């Protein structure tokens, strides 16, 4: 099985187009970092302008606010919406791309089972997701910390602001990246399923993005009937639950509690639902692939 996984990884990482995702991500992160490096204070003023009626902010606070942790948070908010496309580029291609090239025959005329092949392709997609996230962590977290330094992280919410002490932030990023891995693996599993249904790699990529887009719109819409019936079951609703690691509990005096997460059970529940979706997509992929006639 490991040898098969090595083959799949070799195929993914030997293709030049795989690195488009890494390049695109680096370009976006560097552009954000560059803009905030030269004009960060204006950005902070804009962020705080919504809260200026109820809070007074000192200049020192405003200066300290713009640090590596905040920049990373901004980047994650921007990029984790785009990353499903980058994941679909590889996972959506894994079966349909090979079918269109004819190399699926090359694999399926060998003594490996179809379930094994799906597992291996899924595992390779997971490794790709982890590499993307590691790359993002290097660029967005390490890069921003080196460029802007560290300080307390202040996160703006519609209900107010959350402030975390700087030595209480790093583990939250680790947890958020871990959660993002589960969320993006869900997209990879969906893309793999759609790839099984197609013989053209463009189809699964577009279909994955369409599903993510429609579900995200439904997740964000404020229609009461959907709030209790549809939204809780859309995987896109749960993909953004990584933000929960940056919402902290407050004690009786209103001070934030170190190491706390405001609603950890909700975050874990979201993770559980995403894992359920991964299992469902994977099982369906195997079921359909085992019955599929390879005609290309």
């Amino acid at each position, binding site marked *: 099985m490991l040898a098969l996984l090595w083959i799949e990884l070799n195929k993914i990482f030997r293709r030049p187009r795989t690195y488009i995702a890494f390049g695109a991500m680096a370009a976006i992160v560097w552009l954000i970092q560059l803009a905030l490096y030269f004009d960060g204070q204006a950005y902070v003023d804009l962020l705080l302008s919504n809260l200026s009626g109820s809070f007074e902010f000192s200049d020192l606070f405003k200066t300290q606010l713009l640090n590596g942790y905040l920049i990373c948070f901004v980047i994650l908010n921007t990029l984790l919406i785009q990353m499903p496309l980058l994941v679909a580029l590889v996972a959506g291609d894994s079966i349909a791309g090979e079918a269109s090239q*004819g190399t699926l025959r090359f694999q399926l*005329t060998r*003594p490996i089972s179809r379930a094994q092949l799906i597992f291996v392709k899924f595992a390779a997609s997971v490794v790709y997701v982890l590499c993307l996230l590691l790359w993002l962590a290097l660029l967005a977290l390490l890069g921003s910390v080196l460029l802007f330094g560290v300080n307390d992280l202040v996160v703006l919410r519609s209900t107010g602001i959350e402030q975390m002490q700087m030595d209480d932030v790093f583990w939250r990023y680790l947890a958020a990246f871990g959660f993002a891995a589960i969320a993006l693996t869900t997209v990879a599993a969906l893309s793999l399923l759609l790839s099984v249904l197609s013989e053209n790699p463009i189809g699964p990529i577009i279909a994955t993005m369409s599903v993510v887009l429609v579900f995200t719109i439904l997740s964000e819409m404020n229609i009461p009937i959907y709030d209790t019936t549809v939204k809780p079951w859309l995987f896109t609703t749960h993909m953004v639950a990584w933000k929960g690691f940056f919402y902290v509990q407050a004690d009786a005096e209103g001070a934030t509690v170190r190491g706390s997460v405001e609603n950890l059970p909700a975050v874990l529940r979201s993770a559980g639902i995403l894992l359920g979706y991964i299992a469902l997509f994977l099982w369906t992929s195997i079921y359909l692939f085992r019955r599929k006639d390879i005609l290309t």
Partner: protein
Amino acid sequence: MEPLVRVSHLSKRFGSFEAVRDISFEVNRGQVYGFLGQNGAGKSTTLRMIMTLIRPTAGSIEVFGLNLEQHRKEILRQVGAVIEKPDHYGYLSAYENLRMAAVLCGIHPSREKLMQQLDFVGLADRAKSPVKTFSQGMKQRLGIATALVHDPALIILDEPTNGLDPQGIADIRDLIRRLSRDHQKTLIVSSHLLSEIELIADSLLILHKGEKRIEGKMNELLNPAETIVELELGNKAAASILLQQTEWIGSVDWRSDLQCCVRMPKNRIPELVRLLSEADIPVHAVASKHSLEYYFLQLTQTETHVGPAVD
């Protein structure tokens, strides 16, 4: 002797279209078994079913005495195939593609062994070149190398000479002969060209529109006593009488007032020409085809059902 491959009442339906209809055949160990038919006759569909790429609608396949559905992995460990056209990863080298094929078969041969395989198909000097730079013939030879990498007992080659130049065709033909003669492999080779199959196969099966039409050993099917001679003659009435009276002529089929086909032993063609000349019947043209070729041409040139010329 137990056949290596036994196909029984195999059918495949795609919606309302029946691609393969109730075909049965057996391939014995050491044979080169030819699969002949026009494009769309059902050859590739049948071979895909043997390679488990397509699920049959009905029927069963046994390979090495084992049921294919129940023992798929066990069987495929001993089968190598190139179905339709050999497809490789163009951005990888010939050596890397071959090594990948080996790993997929569950083996990890040494570099030396893989280089020997490439040498066998004449690609050792291009081992490091990306496959996307290869000609069609080189890809075909690499396809055969990947099919042979795990030393299978049964090799299936679907249209192996398709798209090749004459030298490429000769190379592949030579490779197939060597595999059969020197390495005692059993091969199933499909083609839409009878001339190709008759040069390499011991036995033959003709498929047409998904149905089996003819099956038999080549030396029996190409029996010279069953040659079809096409004649272009000047006097139908006189020729008819003469041909009917000649006892070694099997059958006469007039195509027009000038053209007829007669079934007769090939070695008596000069005698027939002499008889016609002595009877003052002008002979404008004489062409001989063996009966299998004649039958296959009838199949490929007409859409109507033609009864087999060879029983």
